[in-house]
């Protein structure tokens, strides 16, 4: 034991945003908390790094859609530097040189849609209203510890009852829509509403992010909804960009946690969780140091939490099988680019406000589905779906004055690539991305000062996320709510006493939402730990 007698109320393994949030809430409640981060910096997949001098890359995750406002308030994050900036437009360049744009102003967006289809322009409002209701219907679930439907404990029954009443209260029409959302593909669901292909392609794209599914795969409609929830509170934008990149989100949470008294130690990878008589009692660091704690909380994904940090013999066999079956299937990559100047897109020439929002490379449903076809058979997409933002246009501090950074989220790049990922394959993947952008924005390649290509294998290698899945486990219906990460163990507790989980691999998971970290902390405090 290091220092002879260092002992904490809680040790949190992993300094990603959820781990930091759990630590901050526990420290706020007066617990002595230690966060152990393997990398030299906190943030996990929410990090900003100066990979090329003067240019700050939002390495992995790049937008903040769903960070819970109660966390921002509870932890007083703006005082610690958090500033979420609106990212309000999306432009989809089409292959015929036209475009589809959604702007921050509703009238402007409707007029733009009208240009493509007067019918869709009207349907768009109704669709928005329905999705609003659906998001409202699902919202209570996000802030709820999932009840176990197979349990007869009073807490679970009360939770289920509350949930049942909630859904009955929706009324027939909305309940049916919800069932459709839970079962249909995003393409089919959107077909019921719209006729404009590029609109459906762009909308459905948000249903495939982080999954190994295509827009025509059943179950993707739900993910559409998952991405709609950020819009709920009216003023909370669906998509925001944190000043300083997502790393600044992590830094602000870390700063808040420290202000509450938590200790954060970087370059401190955890090798094992110490278990004595079925109870967690501390951790062993990779350097051999042992640290003791009353409880241990893992923010790592379920595979690493249970199959790497623990010996399988400490866990029930059935649970181990469930965790082994938990699907990761990383399907996305990232290309970060330092630019001498901004590229002009053929569909909307020049430099302007379009560069302050996203460019979605999703010109048609077939385009996106074909991108998936490549991945289904073990290849990266030759012409991938991409979500492009220019962080320096939103926060000029991300690049030297007048220069720019470009963040390209790319799907699909399967973790299990035919023949495996090599340096050459990584560069070929980077070329496919750059060439595709070039086809929509000629002259783009000449502006590149530096490029960083990140494959799912790189994501796994750097952040530890298994198979490079950005959500610490696929956001598929069979892996959500009381099934996340395993039936019976969705309430942040684990089969090992005093050992908890708080990462995105738990309910509700996904995105820089922080709900998992917060709910876990509340659960731990409620358990009286």
């Amino acid at each position, binding site marked *: 034991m290091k220092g002879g007698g260092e002992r904490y109320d809680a040790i949190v393994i992993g300094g990603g945003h959820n781990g930091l949030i759990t630590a901050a809430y526990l420290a706020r409640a007066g617990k002595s908390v230690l966060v152990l981060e393997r990398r030299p910096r906190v943030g996990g997949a929410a990090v900003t790094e100066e990979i090329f001098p003067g240019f700050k890359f939002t390495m992995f995750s790049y937008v903040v859609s769903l960070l819970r406002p*109660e966390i*921002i308030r509870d932890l007083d994050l*703006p005082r610690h530097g958090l500033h979420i900036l609106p990212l309000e437009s999306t432009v989809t360049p089409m292959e015929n040189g036209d475009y589809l744009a959604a702007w921050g102003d509703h009238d402007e967006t409707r007029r733009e849609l009208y240009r493509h289809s007067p019918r869709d322009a009207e349907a768009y409002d109704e669709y928005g209203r329905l999705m609003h209701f659906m998001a409202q219907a699902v919202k209570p679930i996000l802030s709820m510890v999932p009840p176990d439907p197979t349990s007869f404990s009073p807490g679970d029954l009360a939770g289920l009852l509350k949930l049942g009443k909630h859904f009955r209260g929706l009324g027939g029409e909305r309940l049916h829509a919800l069932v459709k959302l839970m079962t249909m593909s995003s393409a089919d669901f959107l077909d019921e509403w719209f006729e404009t292909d590029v609109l459906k392609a762009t909308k459905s794209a948000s249903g495939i992010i982080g999954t190994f599914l295509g827009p025509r795969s059943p179950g993707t409609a739900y993910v559409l909804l998952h991405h709609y929830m950020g819009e709920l509170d009216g003023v909370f934008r669906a998509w925001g960009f944190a000043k300083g990149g997502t790393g600044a989100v992590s830094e602000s949470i870390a700063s808040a946690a420290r202000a509450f008294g938590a200790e954060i130690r970087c370059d401190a990878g955890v090798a094992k969780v110490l278990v004595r008589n079925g109870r967690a009692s501390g951790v062993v660091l990779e350097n051999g140091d042992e640290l003791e704690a009353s409880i241990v909380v893992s923010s790592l994904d379920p595979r690493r939490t249970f199959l790497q940090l623990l010996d399988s013999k400490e866990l029930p066999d059935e649970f181990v099988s469930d965790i082994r079956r938990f699907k990761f299937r990383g399907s996305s990559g990232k290309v970060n680019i330092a630019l001498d100047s901004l590229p002009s897109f053929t569909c909307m020439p020049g430099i302007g406000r379009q560069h302050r929002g996203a460019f979605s490379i999703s010109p048609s449903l077939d385009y996106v589905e074909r991108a998936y076809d490549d991945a289904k058979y073990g290849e990266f997409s030759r012409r991938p779906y991409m979500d492009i933002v220019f962080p320096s246009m939103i926060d000029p501090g991300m690049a030297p004055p007048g220069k720019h950074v470009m963040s390209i989220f790319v799907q699909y790049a399967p973790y299990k690539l035919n023949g495996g990922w090599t340096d050459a394959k990584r560069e070929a993947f980077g070329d496919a991305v750059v060439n595709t952008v070039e086809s929509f924005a000629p002259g783009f390649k000449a502006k590149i000062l530096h490029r960083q290509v990140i494959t799912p294998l790189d994501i796994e290698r750097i952040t530890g996320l298994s198979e490079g899945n950005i959500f610490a486990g696929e956001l598929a219906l069979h892996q959500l709510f009381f099934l996340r990460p395993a039936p019976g163990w969705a309430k942040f507790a684990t089969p090992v006493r005093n050992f908890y989980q708080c990462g995105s691999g738990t309910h509700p998971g996904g995105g820089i939402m922080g709900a998992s970290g917060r709910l876990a902390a509340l659960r731990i405090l409620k358990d009286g730990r």
Partner: protein
Amino acid sequence: MSLRTTPFHARTGPLSEGQAWRRWAGYVVASAYELSHDREYHAIRNSAALFDVSPLYKYMVTGKDAARLLDHVVTRHVAKAKVGQVLYTPWCDNDGKQIDDGTISVLNEQTFRMTSADPTLRWLHLNSSGLDVGIEDVSERTAAVSLQGPSSRAILQIAAERDLSALKYFRLTSATIRGIPVTISRTGYTGDLGYEVWVDAGQAVPLWDAIVETGAAYGITPAGMLALDVARIEAGLLLIEVDYFSSRHALIEAQKSSPLELGLGWTVATDKERYNGQAALDAERRRGPSWQFTGLTVDWDSLERLYADVGLPPRLPSQAWRMSVPIYDRGGQRQVGYATSGGWSPLLKRYMALAHLESASAAPGTEVRMEVTVEHRRKQATARVTPLPFFNPERKRA
């Protein structure tokens, strides 16, 4: 056009996407240039926002007795201020009730520039009998822009080709920007790092161009009054005719406020000769003011519940509001004050308000109730007394 446009209008006019203008002292200035003021607001806290603040009333007070005149009028101690200093100060009538608030820039020992929200020429003249002083209204001759936000210093340093890091909070310096003589003061109405640039009206347009061109690489964003409204509430800065009434416009005593009741006690000097309102203010200070001007934070859960009761998610004001809203004690029965400004802070993710509260209910942390209208019905949301400012970044003074 019967309302005047400012000297920057040749540039600000074409920027207006939605033709949203607001009246200010007989001029029109932009409410917002873009269709929504969101980005303009965020520029204040993220990069740099450029405001046209030319409609401010401005007076040059000069001569041997200039400081004496100002010291007789305002509550701050002007004679003690150093050359290059800027004072924020209220001024009062003889009953110690506030007439207006503004700034006094000490340009040299005998030259002061005073700004005010209301015309002040007559009041200065009335107070100057027997003094050797010149008073000149330079409101129309002087244009001003305010550059506010974390990047404001970087932009102005390049534009003025000089280091501004030594220019402290509420200090000023003369400079040239592309050959145009200007005064740069480290002042503003946002509670952030920021500067105001004062220029001869004839040079306004080339100054605007110089600043905007320099700022382009730093995300400079022309911004209107809607954005400023939100920032000034976050900064806890009060606004005449909104948060208080000039004692000269008040129709009844109850409409008047003293600086001590407005949270401006720090501006009321205790170490200078007789000035307007001194006796009343001294007496009020001894017995303690009956009112306090303070921040309120509306409790989110309470607001959410009120809306959930009617099946709605919480509705938040999309712009800062300016109206009188009753504040009750925590029992919800007895009115203990009223809020005069409020709004949602996109930065802090808090619903904030500025309120006048009876002193007994104004201690930080006190739980009160604020009236909110939910689906046409009057409800009360829980709110907590929060010391001002709501937001006070280190960079403001650093």
